[in-house]
């Protein structure tokens, strides 16, 4: 069937400058380029990932949005028409990857941070110590002290297990399968270097990552792939995955052709088997059932590791979070609707969930009012783009922010959103060995370490300007935020005053 959809991008080569090295032809994972005496592009296959343009030694490649215009229609956008054509041609659900790219409002962009002037002096982070260290885990209701054998005061309250993070950042869950082993190695190496954690996602833990296991959060999801007693002994913490911001209420599906030997070993399924993660855990139909699985994982890990629960931010997220805390979770991972994915039905990715800013505010508020906020740390994710977003999320109530998309972008991802094809030219979201090889773990890890360092420095600057010397002093401190251009109801939910008041 002839496709009615015109190419999204036009791939232009300046043949005057091109010296026919064919590097671009080799670099395209999507097979868009051929060499027939000169470079010839199949525009329809170009996804705009810029791998070829980035590595062209002559700078001879330009990729532009196809200017061929459909007649403008505010209601029947080009996107709607193209989607209908693609579905009429395939009969299938449209797939997408990465996070929701629709122009819903970003509340981070309506929030401004405070700073000190004159009467409450700011702090110079270049001179004064700034504390970014954060502990992930359940905190006691109160601290009690008694005298130790040496007569000195000693803490008598038993503390729950904690994961020490040197900065309030972690890498989000991205499974081996959705991303390459080299990408996971880079994340693990960077996590170790930065004193933070990466997260296995639901793909098991490859043996090569065992040396980093103190900086790995291991996930237990509905398919239970790779979950074995050995796996549970690895890892700094355990995360039960209920949902994901990009696809709340939707399961996962790694098609059999993406299950080669290494992935099969790690997921503990035969080569070529479809990995179906059912939408719900079939042993969890209530908060009591969730409590049971949390308990089982705590028993299996001898109460030595925090056990948390990851959920997508959905309409009643505050009540759900309250239930999760009462079920015994040591942390909640809240994923907003901008959160990324390796593959999701577009209709779900683009139309389900909640903005993370509203979700974290609602959850923090609810847990505080119920007097149980101390029982679980809040890890907040779903479109965290900068240290400013981190600072604002912390002020709204987050303990830690998780970054997935930002980490991938740091490694070279250009957000072409084609992860589900497995053809990633950057060697990140692919299992094709010739593509995976391009991503050198050392180099990618250095880029990640640099990003975390840069954001941490910026966070210290922000704290200094706020007159604070510890990130925990900003946590839930909404008084230090003001909003521009938001209605009263939204202000109430965020617990933030309008700018000028």
């Amino acid at each position, binding site marked *: 069937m002839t496709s009615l959809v015109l190419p999204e991008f036009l791939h232009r080569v300046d043949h005057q400058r091109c010296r026919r090295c064919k590097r671009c032809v080799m670099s395209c994972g999507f097979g868009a380029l051929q060499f027939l005496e000169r470079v010839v592009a199949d525009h329809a296959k170009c996804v705009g990932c810029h791998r070829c343009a980035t590595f062209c030694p002559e700078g001879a490649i330009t990729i532009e949005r196809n200017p061929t215009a459909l007649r403008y229609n505010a209601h029947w956008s080009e996107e709607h028409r193209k989607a209908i054509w693609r579905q009429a041609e395939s009969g299938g659900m449209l*797939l997408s990857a990465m996070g929701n790219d629709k122009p819903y409002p970003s509340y981070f962009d309506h929030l401004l941070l405070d700073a000190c002037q004159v009467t409450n002096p700011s702090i110079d982070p270049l001179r004064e110590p700034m504390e970014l260290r954060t502990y992930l885990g359940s905190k006691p209701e109160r601290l009690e002290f008694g005298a130790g054998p040496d007569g000195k005061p000693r803490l008598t309250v038993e503390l729950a297990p904690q994961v020490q993070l040197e900065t309030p950042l972690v890498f989000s869950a991205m499974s081996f399968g959705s991303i390459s082993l080299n990408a996971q190695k880079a994340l693990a190496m960077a996590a170790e270097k930065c004193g933070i954690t990466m997260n296995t996602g639901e793909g098991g833990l490859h043996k090569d990552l065992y040396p980093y296991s103190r900086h790995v959060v291991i996930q237990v999801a509905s398919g239970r792939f790779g979950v074995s*007693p050995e796996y549970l002994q690895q890892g700094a913490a355990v995360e039960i995955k209920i949902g994901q911001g990009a696809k709340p209420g939707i399961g996962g599906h790694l098609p059999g052709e993406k299950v080669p030997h290494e992935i099969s070993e790690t997921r503990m399924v035969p080569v070529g088997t479809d990995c*179906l993660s059912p939408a719900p855990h079939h042993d969890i139909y209530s908060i009591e059932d969730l409590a049971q699985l949390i*308990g089982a994982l705590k028993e299996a890990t001898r109460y030595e590791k925090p056990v948390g629960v990851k959920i997508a931010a959905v309409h009643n997220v505050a009540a759900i979070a309250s239930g999760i805390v009462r079920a015994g979770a040591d942390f909640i991972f809240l994923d907003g609707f901008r959160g990324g994915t390796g593959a999701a039905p577009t209709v779900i990715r683009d139309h389900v969930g909640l903005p993370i800013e509203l979700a974290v505010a609602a959850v923090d508020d609810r847990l505080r009012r119920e007097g149980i906020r101390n029982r679980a740390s809040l890890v907040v994710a779903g479109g965290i783009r900068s240290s400013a977003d981190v600072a604002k999320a912390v002020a709204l109530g987050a303990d830690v922010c998780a970054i997935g998309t930002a980490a991938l972008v740091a490694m070279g991802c250009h957000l072409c959103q084609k992860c589900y094809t497995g053809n990633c030219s950057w060697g990140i979201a692919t299992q094709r060995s010739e593509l995976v090889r391009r991503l050198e773990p050392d180099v990618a890890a250095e880029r990640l370490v640099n990003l975390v360092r840069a954001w941490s420095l910026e966070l210290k600057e922000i704290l200094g300007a706020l007159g604070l010397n510890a990130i925990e002093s900003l946590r839930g401190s909404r008084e230090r935020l003001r909003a521009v251009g938001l209605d009263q109801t939204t202000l109430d939910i965020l617990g933030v005053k309008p700018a000028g008041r």
Partner: protein
Amino acid sequence: MTTEICAQQMDYRELNAKVRAAVAGGERELVLSQVNGQRYLGVGLTQPVKLSIHGVAGNDLAAFMDGPTLEIWGNAQDGVGNTMNSGRVVIHGSAGDVLGYGMRGGRILVRGDVGYRVGIHMKSFKRQVPTIVVGGSAGDFLGEYMAGGVLVVLNLWKEEKEPVGRWTGTGMHGGAIYLRGGSVSPDRLGREVLAAPAGEEDQPVLFPLLDDFATTFGLEAEELRRQPFQRLTPTSHRPYGNLYAY
């Protein structure tokens, strides 16, 4: 030597800690008496120990277990063998819902009935082939999303009843289910399941399981071997392969 622990009035955390401490101390055979619904027995144990459990074993018995043998002289509640890796569980009574969820290896034998959602997402890996044999009947959603392993339902005790509930094998894409008896009503089966009479080619898989079950519970192995069985296998290894536009 055998260590006996009386579980009467004991919280599950204390009971499991005692079991772990005994195992860590080198004990290889334990008897737990007066068990009354304590959860997580055998959870995360990785040593080849034997636990004899008298009473009712609570939820998530043998979850994440790797190696031990548990014998329950009574009923077991929900979630037996959750994500179990290897080992053996013998239940002389009946068991509740979600038995064998995500089970990757080992064997569970239940003399009586089992509840809903049994054997969901069982999978096999290399030489690990999880097996479950149920002496009585099973509830709805048996073997849903099943990706590997073998499930056998014998329906020995109330033959007038159907051996399985509805939606058996929905989303199944690997492994096999054997049901004793001529034919189960088609309305009990999921769309992804192909039903056929078991034949000679099934004997190498089925007979050792029947023999084990008979030996364990004192039944006639020959008698079980003579029974007709129906085999359920997935119609496709890719039941959800053509849903998407790439």
